[in-house]
């Protein structure tokens, strides 16, 4: 990509273009967001009567203190965060706990009305203030490699059953901790550090050596380039690295600097004919390239976004938009096609915008959505702990990843996440799919190879329909051991519920009392019978126990086939033939087994599942935590997706890419604070 310089179109009448676009594509309400501390709020009657015993200054259980939340100097955002969660728990009946006094239906209704009026109706959508953001390690690798046009690989011999880090960059850069959004591309809390600086420098020394080697030398620098050729190359590289067409004054300033430094090196000479000059030119070029690649504008996104600082929401410029798209879908810089579309302004036209998105989803780089976004959203990296034999582990992990890639890029309906008739298997996972395994092409191991990692093939599920969807894939079942982890995962990752940490003093699940044979489920129910446990466990347990027909490594066991171990029988832990997968959700729905629960998830719980997918993907796309002023945006997207029974991941990706916070921003002026 480096070799080809984008032919930038002559400056456009950008303002006019943006005006046009605003009406065509970004038809969103313009509004101001609430910000800063709100006034003291009167404590609503329900909270006053039913909540303050446990959630006030004297005893803030679960770290919730309504007196503090409603105090005058608490920000609107904080109040929203706490009270919206409270409203949810109060409306679904989980709070107050069952052994406490309960409010009447009328009181609950009154509280909901108060909440709606204070925190829902009054909130207007806002894109939030603009923030620059450092590239995550993953984004940095993709960006640098796209820019250079080759991969930075470590010399390491790759062998089967052996895990080798092959990327120089991933080896050297520290792992990014997830930001407040839960995703690692949210680097807002992870500034540049000395370690990072040193590692960037070490990486670039190696990368630029490679770039100027015979194998990769850009053609502009081949032979004996004249001074102007070198200058042009450096200027064009800089604009590529900064992922945009640069302002005139910035370009001029850069040229002046370059000439100054050239003069320091070479005096007034403008050709580089002698060999010693050639080495010096290489050194000069290398140092200049390193300056570009160590500068804040390369290492961060958004420093060069061009806009007036007016403290009100404005559409982002076309290059910023291109970059938002490419880091969302690819975790990579925009490619040539995208930059060209930004340069000539066509990206700002809805049809072209969608065309670009479709093109990007067809690219192999869109694998990022499953490997980066979904891996983190669904914590699929935990499958690594399931097996220490890499071919097995990779088979278990690649299955959900291939499936998600298929859902995302082929525009499958959103709810196929939970229920689908397609899966991806290879000979290592085939044993979980009794009849469907026949769909695999015959596999024969080559002589002298002990175990090897294998690619998946797409299969149609006919008999193993309970295996459809991501929840009952063997790797996912195995990474969440036991009903409680499975239930918690389902609740948090699929239904999007927030669960506080369990208290520290939960103790152990008791053994069966003498003379009784209780199942784990029965014993667990004794253990969690306290009302304060029930607040969460009423939600977690039915979900988790619905998957009891799957064993710890994800295998399927029918209740009738289930044979407890001798030890289990001896200890009276598992009465023979007893696998209880029935359950009732706190919202009332009954189900017989996991299949029944699945139908509830794609039926009655459809709204919750779609809202959760939307929120997670939007957070990833914006690389920030969602705030109260994003609620209208989320609500609008979810409403549209829920309405159409066939809504697909493509619809969701379009909706996010066209949403207010994705396409607009607020550039705060200096006196904003």
């Amino acid at each position, binding site marked *: 990509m480096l070799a080809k310089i984008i032919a930038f179109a002559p400056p456009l009448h950008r303002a006019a273009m943006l005006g046009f676009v605003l009406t065509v594509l970004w038809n969103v309400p313009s509004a101001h967001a609430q910000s800063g501390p709100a006034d003291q709020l009167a404590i609503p009657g329900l909270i006053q009567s039913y909540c303050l015993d446990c959630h006030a200054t004297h005893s803030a259980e679960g770290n919730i203190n309504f007196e503090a939340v409603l105090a005058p100097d608490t920000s609107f955002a904080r109040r929203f965060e706490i009270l919206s969660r409270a409203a949810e728990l109060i409306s679904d009946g989980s709070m107050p706990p069952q052994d406490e006094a309960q409010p009447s239906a009328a009181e609950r209704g009154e509280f909901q009305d108060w909440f709606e009026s204070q925190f829902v109706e009054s909130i207007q959508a806002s894109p939030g203030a603009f923030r620059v953001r450092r590239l995550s390690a993953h984004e940095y690798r993709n960006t640098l490699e796209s820019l250079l046009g080759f991969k930075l690989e470590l010399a390491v011999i790759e062998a089967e059953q052996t895990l080798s880090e092959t990327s120089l960059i991933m080896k050297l850069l520290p792992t990014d901790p997830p930001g407040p959004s839960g995703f690692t591309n949210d680097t807002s809390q992870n500034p540049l550090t000395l370690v990072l600086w040193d590692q960037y420098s070490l990486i670039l020394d190696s990368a630029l050596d490679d770039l100027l080697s015979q194998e990769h030398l850009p053609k502009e620098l081949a032979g004996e380039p004249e001074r102007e050729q070198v200058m042009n190359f450096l200027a064009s590289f800089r604009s590529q690295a900064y992922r945009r067409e640069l302002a005139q004054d910035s370009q001029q300033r850069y040229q002046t600097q370059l000439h100054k430094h050239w003069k320091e090196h070479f005096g007034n000479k403008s050709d580089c004919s002698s060999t010693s000059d050639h080495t010096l030119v290489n050194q000069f070029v290398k140092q200049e390239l390193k300056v570009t690649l160590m500068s804040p504008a390369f290492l961060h996104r958004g420093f060069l976004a061009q806009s007036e600082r007016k403290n009100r929401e404005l559409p982002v410029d076309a290059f910023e938009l291109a970059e938002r798209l490419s880091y969302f879908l690819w975790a990579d810089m925009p490619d040539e096609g995208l930059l060209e579309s930004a340069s000539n302004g066509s990206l700002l036209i809805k049809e072209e915008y969608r065309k670009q998105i479709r093109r990007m989803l067809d690219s192999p780089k869109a694998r990022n959505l499953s490997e980066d976004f979904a891996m983190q959203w669904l914590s699929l990296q935990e499958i690594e702990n399931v097996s220490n034999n890499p071919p097995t582990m990779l088979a278990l992990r690649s299955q959900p990843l291939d499936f998600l890639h298929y859902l995302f890029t082929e525009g499958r309906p959103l709810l196929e996440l939970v229920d689908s008739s397609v899966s991806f298997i290879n000979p290592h996972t085939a044993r979980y799919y009794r009849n469907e395994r026949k769909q695999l092409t015959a596999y024969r191991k080559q002589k*002298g190879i002990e175990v090897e990692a294998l690619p998946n093939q797409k299969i149609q599920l006919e008999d193993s329909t309970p295996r459809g969807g991501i929840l009952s894939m063997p790797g996912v079942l195995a990474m969440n051991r036991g009903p409680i982890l499975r239930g918690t995962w389902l609740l948090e990752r699929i239904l999007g519920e927030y669960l506080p940490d369990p208290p520290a003093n939960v103790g152990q699940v008791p053994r069966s009392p003498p003379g009784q044979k209780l199942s784990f489920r029965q014993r667990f129910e004794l253990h969690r019978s306290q009302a304060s446990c029930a607040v969460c466990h009423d939600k977690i347990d039915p979900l988790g126990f619905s998957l009891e027909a799957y064993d710890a490594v994800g295998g399927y066991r029918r209740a009738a086939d289930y044979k407890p171990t001798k030890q289990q029988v001896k200890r009276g832990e598992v009465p023979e033939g007893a696998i209880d997968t029935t359950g009732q959700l706190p919202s009332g729905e009954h189900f017989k087994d996991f299949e029944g629960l699945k139908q509830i998830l794609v039926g009655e719980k459809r709204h919750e599942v779609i809202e959760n997918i939307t929120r997670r993907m939007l957070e990833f796309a914006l690389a920030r935590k969602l705030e109260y002023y994003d609620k209208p945006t989320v609500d609008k997207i979810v409403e549209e997706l829920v309405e159409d029974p066939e809504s697909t991941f493509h619809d969701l990706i379009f909706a996010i890419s066209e949403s207010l916070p994705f396409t607009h921003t607020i550039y705060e002026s200096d006196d904003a604070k």
Partner: protein
Amino acid sequence: MSWNVDRRRFLRSAAGPLLPLPLLNLMTSQTRAGEQKPPIRFVTLFKPNGVHPPSWNISGGQEFDFRMSPLMQPFAEHKQDLLILDNMGDFGFSSHANSTRRFLSGHHKNTKSASVDQLIAQKIAGDTAHKSLELTTEGLFPNQIGCSYISYGQNGEPLPRESDPQLVFDRVFRNPLANPAERKSMASLLDRVQEDARSLNRQAGSQDRQTLDQYMTVLRETEKRLATMNEKPAPKLDFSKLQRPLAPVNLNEQVEAMIDVMCLALWTDSTRCITYMLGNSNSRMIFDFLGIQEQHHYLSHFFRNFSRHNLDALLKISLWHMEKFDYLLKRMKSFQDGNGTLLENSIVLFGSGMGHSDNHTATRIPIVLAGQGAGRIKTGRYIRYAKNQELGRLHLSLLKRFGVQTDSFAGSSDLLPGLQDSSYEHYFERPFESWVKYEDGNITAQGRLRLSDNLDEAKVFFVDIEGETPVRIEVSFRDFHDFNLAYHCGTAIQIQGAGKRQGEQLLMTKVLKLDSLFGHKPGTQNG
């Protein structure tokens, strides 16, 4: 790492000849100025997956009078710089992971203390920039993670390893902390990016300014670090003149480039202790560049996966390992160090953690010391101990040679005798007469059986007879298998068969009878 393991990495050079190594841009006669007495170094080269004993073990042999075994041929020219130790190890058998730990930790249960290299490094590092380097060629083998490590830190924790020679070179020689030229270029870089950051500051909002402030803080801190480094005396050598290795395209180039970097790091006194694993134990590597398609571990089980082809492939791989040991010694000899060579001022430990690669014996583990460590060991010898010597004794003795004060290591409190002199008990073999008779196409011979030195013909054997030309045995696969010829290598036998005379040489082409003089029968001996 997965089904798309890039085998092309190997294949790329399989067709053509191997590329010559980049010549180091160094004058080997150059001596570091002002150096009085060169430091002593400790280098370890680990060969994974044990050996094929008939081709590794020395047949017969006394301390100063011995014939290097077929597998030792690639480094035979260094005979005078070697101390070959035999009958090293423990009784019994060992898993891959346990044997790998044993190599430098003495015993697999020694899991709470540092490995011997780290204890030595601690003692000899002085003010070198890198206390030690831990190197390897491949990734981690999580199924038995112990297969991936030989070096362990102070609490017995595995130390991460590097496999990329360019990366190791960059870390040692390009680090601005160690290299004034790099510091200068970093300083000018800091000036330039500061300029850039300032121009951005003009248009940034208040939140973004914070990000810029953090960036500027890092720049200032880096400037401070450079200034501190500049106050220290400049190193005697200009590292900018050292040639960075090219990116390797296969395992052979990777290992040779790494050995080049190792020698530079030792010679420039950037470090004094290096451990290098030629592969994980249990390695699934495929030696495509040698024309082999099977995994190393599969082939190393030469008995259970026995075939002529598999054995030939295994021996090719083993020979390659030996060639790399030879390469290391040659390179170390090419650097002038004080009044001697780098090798003379080093002790190199080469070997494996297990003996027999198919049945994983912990006895007769291949162990070779090279270099004199400035007089700390006496080379040019072959020591076959009368009694089995656990590796912990070797480690304890090495610790002592390097001045580490300790009474025991890995449960061993006895030193290994014989490293500096001949005060040890050599393996005693019952004397026997050797003779040969030839009559009408029938050969009967009594003597010690050994494999041909040329492992390309590993189906050819010789019976050594005092004062006579050895009898050459070249028989069908059937005979090779039925009489288990390889098993008897190194021991005295009486053999009877059909053959002919070719000039001086008697050639047996059919075996009729084979008796072990001292009753060794297959399956009755350890190893």
